[in-house]
């Protein structure tokens, strides 16, 4: 059996009295893409920073690349790539100098580094902007530069904290493609996101986090199978009417959720349920039958929506 690259047992992070990460356990295996899915404030970034050896843990056990990150910070960081949630590029340096200087922090020899910088500029499709100041780049370009920067030391484990936030759909798909390529070349990915589509696209396995705890763990398919049914019927009502309607759909589906403007009916056959709704004489403004997603898993587990 291969040893996990990251192993957490009862891991805790406190800020003063506030518990941001509350006794979580998980393993990340070599070569896999592992995700943290959760709403704002769930503790995803706090967990990532502990793994990235830039935030000491407050309790529990943590091993990254086989050692304690708190004791071997520089050694661990030398082998990690980190894409932080907020870009923190060096605004006083040009695009290519950002990559070059970052490489120097890893002690990469100058000659080797120059070649690496050229490769990374191509990877990020920023070769034409190499001499520009970072502040003149668009948000998406900055993000790509940050991601390229995280690869300068050819990391074994790449930590991506909401890598595609602020990117347009095209840029997002491009980035997913790049990440798939990295994964194929053997890099282990750790991704946080609150986009379920991203989690489904990228992650072999993921945990759903909420208020510092892990609510569920598994592959996207497994989670959907385990916690929700195959299909969902969404009944949309006029403002604030939905909760009042909840009692009227009793018995139509094994499980229902009432949101402010919608009722969600979890069922094995959406069309049949939709017909049953019509027979009861309900008049929703809109009826939608769709496949269940991680969003539904989250709603089921926490009673709250992932993205409001």
């Amino acid at each position: 059996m291969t040893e996990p690259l990251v192993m957490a047992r009862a891991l805790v992070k406190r800020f003063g009295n506030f518990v941001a990460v509350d006794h979580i356990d998980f393993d990340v295996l070599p070569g896999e893409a592992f995700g943290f899915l959760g709403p704002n404030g769930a503790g995803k970034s706090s967990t990532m920073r502990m793994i990235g050896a830039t935030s000491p843990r407050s309790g529990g056990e943590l091993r990254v690349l086989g050692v304690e990150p708190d004791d071997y910070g520089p050694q661990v960081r030398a082998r990690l790539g980190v894409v932080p949630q907020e870009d923190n590029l060096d605004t006083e340096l040009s695009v290519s100098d950002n990559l070059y200087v970052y490489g120097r922090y890893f002690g990469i020899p100058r000659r080797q580094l120059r070649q690496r910088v050229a490769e990374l500029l191509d990877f990020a499709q920023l070769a034409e902007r190499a001499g520009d100041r970072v502040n003149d780049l668009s948000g998406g370009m900055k993000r790509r530069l940050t991601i390229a920067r995280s690869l300068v030391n050819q990391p074994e484990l790449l930590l991506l904290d909401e890598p595609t936030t602020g990117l347009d759909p095209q840029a997002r798909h491009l980035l997913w493609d790049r990440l798939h390529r990295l994964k194929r070349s053997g890099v282990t990915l750790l991704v946080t996101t609150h986009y379920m589509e991203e989690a489904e696209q990228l992650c072999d396995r993921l945990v759903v986090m909420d208020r510092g705890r892990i609510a569920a763990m598994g592959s996207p398919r497994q989670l959907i199978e385990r916690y929700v049914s195959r299909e969902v019927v969404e009944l949309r009502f006029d403002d604030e009417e939905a909760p009042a309607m909840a009692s009227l759909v009793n018995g139509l589906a094994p499980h229902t959720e009432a949101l402010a403007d919608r009722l969600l009916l979890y069922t094995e056959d959406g069309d049949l349920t939709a017909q049953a709704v019509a027979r009861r004489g309900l008049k929703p403004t809109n009826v939608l039958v769709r496949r269940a997603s991680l969003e539904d898993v989250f709603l089921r587990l926490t009673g709250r929506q992932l993205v409001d």
Partner: protein
Amino acid sequence: MSSPAPRVGVTVASPRFARPAALVGRNLMVQKAVPYVWATGLVEPVFYLLSIGVGIGHLVGKMPGPNGAEVPYAAFVAPALLASSAMNGAVYECTTNIFDKLHWAKIYRGVVATPLTPRDIAVAEVASAVVRSALYSAAFLVAMAVLSGTRSPWALLALPCAVLVGLAFAACGFMSACYMRSWTDFDKVMLVQMPLFLFSATFYPLSVFPRWLQLLVEAAPLYQGVAACRELCLGQPSWDIIGHLAYLAALAGAAMAISTRRATKLLTP
């Protein structure tokens, strides 16, 4: 258990100064783009020397030196200006810059994700400031030799002395930057720096002051630099210099220790 082995090409660079050196290199790269900052930094102390040493010197005439014998005012005040410009330069260099990088540009957030530690950052920034300060001090010594007729070979030792002043105050500057919450806190730095500049026996001997103020000044950090530089530049060294230098070294060490702790808290919460 063994520590993890890095990939080819990546060195964790454990020697104490190799990691900060990369950040010093980054700072030099940025500063190379603004040569006028260097150039004007070399000129500024000379303005002070001309105005205060020569201009006011014309009004004052002579001043009693450390051993009581009268010396021309320019020769009296120049070493003090050397020390205080080392202080002003280092504080200027460290406070605004560092605060900007910490809180606005957030550059260090990226740096701590590499093998560099907050301590490496403190060392690198202070070292960068000291490099510049040393350059300015050397230029000042040359100007001083020309303008105020300093001839004693002891004056050469005033350079390391001024560098030590720069080091101590760069460390203090970094420390203050770590504790600042907003730009207006710079006013508080000014409130410390200004009395140090004006009252550290810079412009006239301590004997002017009442006894209590003399004791206060003798305990203040810039006074150590002024006294040591003055004795050396006037060619009248005493054993007191050892004490002055030890004081500055201790201040630098303490400020670095506090800076490291505070920066660690800020950057790796």
